[in-house]
């Protein structure tokens, strides 16, 4: 909680950032972090699946494999999200 200890947020005439601004900033930073982590996962998964023996350049079959792989990984993530949601709805 370091970012908050130095200057406590206040409204009105105070000089600290409003909590709304802080929340917005945090949201944006979190979204960026989530996206970066997802990207890194997709990179490593698709490299493993599509580039088994790296050559001097990416072949056309490798690059089309990567395109398909990205789409399928997004789909697989949606499946996981769906089942996680379902688990929450169960008593």
């Amino acid at each position: 909680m370091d970012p908050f200890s130095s200057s406590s947020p206040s409204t009105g005439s105070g000089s600290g950032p409003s909590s709304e601004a802080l929340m917005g900033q945090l949201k944006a930073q979190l979204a960026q972090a989530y996206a970066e982590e997802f990207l890194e996962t997709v990179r490593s998964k698709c490299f493993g699946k599509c580039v088994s023996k790296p050559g001097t350049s990416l072949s056309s079959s490798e690059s089309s494999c990567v395109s398909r792989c990205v789409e399928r990984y997004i789909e697989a993530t949606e499946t996981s999200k769906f089942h996680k949601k379902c688990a929450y709805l169960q008593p």
Partner: protein
Amino acid sequence: MENSEELQRFLEQEKQKAMISEMVGKLTSLCWDKCITSTPGSKFSSSETSCLTNCAQRYIDMSMIIMKRFESMQ
């Protein structure tokens, strides 16, 4: 005062979201490795689809068992 309460609530929500997002990420990674054994096609095969579904559901079942076991320790 009201301000910090609002922030606390927000942080609590984001913490929850982060935990869910982490679990979804782990689950997807594990099930991908288990179920997608060939190079990805333009569509999942029916066996891949059912494997992904079963894998997600069983992972969640398993998590429940483990969580219960650890709750009983506290």
